[in-house]
């Protein structure tokens, strides 16, 4: 184990996969000469050259489609879309081609593609640059949507995504890039489609993914001091969704709070709450609660931005309320 930042774990994984397989190449805006908007690809153009690291013009639909076409031919493109907000320019290619080619071709064509893209607010980037649109993609059969919260998973899930034969949307998060954690040395491939229990507990289950899972973990650790034993489930994968792990946890604790950075209505938490009511109905001692973003285009002004986003205070309050409910 080595302590690395989430950013470094992603960078090292890209480097290792570029070294391992010459069919792997990177493509995206400003990933080469500029070394990436968030510096995940720093140094990779210099090391691997322009044949493996492609600076694309501002043409998300075009270069994402090019990557899908290249994947149909057996290459393994790793696309960087600067933020998930810009993926909307490419959504037709992702939803109508990447997700469907295998199906409409009757299995003749596969799309071994990875799209890396960060979501997340809290950086005062305002309404168009702070969105969490992962549920849009998690809704679509044919795609896989991964959302690592820990630095170990940043490595393990990205490695798995690049080696997977299906199109994978790899959700990163602006607020996680500088976080640090232990990362296994050497080969580390996580299994796609398994949630992780980040912290076991007896009294309540807090479920999150990406940044929200880290918030959940922080809250759970603090609550230990008050004698509250909270279990934290990190989804790691939104599609496929590991319903077994979620339901098993809630059957044990009988209470659940969901933390999500996306908007409440029709968001990820809605799917989780529906899953829990069906998979653990008789075990529930309180309604399932959701801590999600306020339903507004995220404002620029700091006090408004802070108020609109889920944080540890809101999660702590909702956990306590849920524990009081019978």
């Amino acid at each position, binding site marked *: 184990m080595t302590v690395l930042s989430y950013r470094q774990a992603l960078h090292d994984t890209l480097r290792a996969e570029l070294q391992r397989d010459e069919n792997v*190449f990177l493509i995206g805006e400003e990933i080469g000469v500029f070394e990436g908007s968030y510096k995940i690809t720093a140094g990779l153009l210099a090391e691997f050259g322009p*044949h493996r690291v492609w600076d694309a*013009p501002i*043409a998300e*639909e*075009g*270069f*994402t*489609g*090019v*990557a*899908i*076409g*290249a*994947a*149909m*031919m*057996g*290459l393994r493109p790793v696309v960087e879309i600067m933020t998930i907000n810009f993926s909307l320019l490419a959504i*037709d*290619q992702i939803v*109508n*081609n990447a997700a469907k*080619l*295998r*199906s*409409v*071709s*009757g*299995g*003749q*064509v*596969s799309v*071994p593609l990875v799209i890396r893209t960060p979501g997340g607010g809290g950086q005062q980037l305002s309404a168009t640059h702070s969105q969490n649109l992962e549920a849009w993609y998690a809704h679509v*059969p*044919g795609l*896989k949507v991964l959302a690592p919260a820990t630095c170990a998973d940043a490595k393990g899930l990205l490695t798995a995504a690049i080696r*997977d*034969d*299906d199109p994978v949307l790899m959700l990163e998060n602006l607020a996680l890039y500088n976080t640090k954690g232990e990362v296994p040395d050497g080969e580390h491939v996580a*299994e*796609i*489609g*398994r949630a992780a229990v980040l912290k076991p507990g007896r009294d309540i289950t807090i479920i999150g993914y990406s940044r929200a899972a880290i918030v959940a973990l922080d809250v759970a650790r603090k609550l230990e001091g008050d004698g509250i034993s909270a279990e934290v489930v990190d989804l790691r*994968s939104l599609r*496929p*969704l*590991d*319903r*077994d792990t979620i*339901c098993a946890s809630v*059957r044990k604790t009988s209470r659940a709070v969901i933390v999500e950075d996306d908007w409440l209505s029709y968001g990820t938490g809605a799917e989780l709450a529906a*899953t829990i*009511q*069906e*998979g*653990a*109905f*008789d*075990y529930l001692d309180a309604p399932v609660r959701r801590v999600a973003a306020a339903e507004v285009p995220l404002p620029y002004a700091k006090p408004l931005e802070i108020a609109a986003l889920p944080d540890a205070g809101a999660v702590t309050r909702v956990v306590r309320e849920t524990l009081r409910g019978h």
Partner: protein
Amino acid sequence: MTDPAGTDMTREDPAILREYYRQMALIRAFELRAAEMYSRARIGGYCHLNLGEEATVTGLTAALKPEDYLFATYREHGYALARGADPGRVMAELFGRTDGLSGGRGGSMHLFDRENRLLGGYGIVGGQIPLATGAAFALAYKGERGPDAPAVMCLLGDGTTNIGAFHESLNLAALWHLPVVYVIVNNQLGMGTPVEAASAEPDLWKRGCAYRIPGQRVDGNDVLAVRDAARAALDRARTQRRPALLETVSYRLRGHSVVDPARYRTAEDTERVRREDPLPAFRGHLIAAGVLDDEAAARIGAEADKAVAAAVDFADASPAPGVSALFDCVYASPPPGMYRGLPGDPVTGGGQA
């Protein structure tokens, strides 16, 4: 631009000319039969026919080498046939049967034949253009170049030149020197909208100039002119990695899809359809050139009808896919825990204590 009038038939191999006619006749027979099968509810969904485009289909596919890749639109039955797909398997796909090219999962708009390097028909207008550009990217990535290197042909319709994906793709192909030939199959109508009402530059072959991509317009009813222009563009793509834009101009014999009565057409248009029909025109040229006689032409027509009848029989005999196969082909590596419920099935087990 080329002037296709007066293409010299005497310089062509008569056997190859007869083969072109045979292919055009097969496409005509297949599409007429598909329309009939649609009206008898054996084919569902949308069904777009190549009627009136037989010379374009045959000319373009004649220019392709077996190792080249073709990306098509949703109006692609003829291309699948000309690329070498078995007519029975194409008809079975239209019928939604297990022996269809895609096992009945794609239907009329999504014919894929990997073996013959047909990488799909596409239902979203222009969706194939970035993909074809990406296939050319992969060829360039693998370093193949020269007169024997494979290239990519990407079909699109006249209306498609107005979407963003077209322009983004042309820019990328020119910027990165990709071996791809974009072919605008201009049948003069985007559904019911004439080219002039949709494109500020109705000379569509000029639309690559912003990307320094050479353009050319040919008569889509002239199979040899289409073939020669496509061949030259493909050769340039193979050897120089220069993308090209080719516009073939023909005219749809019928509506946008089988269910479209084409009421937007004037009587004059309808007369033009008859006058410009490429199949009898090509037959007339071949007979005049002594390559074909009435008897041989009739025989080719009869053989096409027979092949299509056999295709219908084959499709009829092929079983419909079983529901147990519903979740096949969604993923190459189906993940553990992938939900495979039918509507109303429980999502999780064990909700009750």
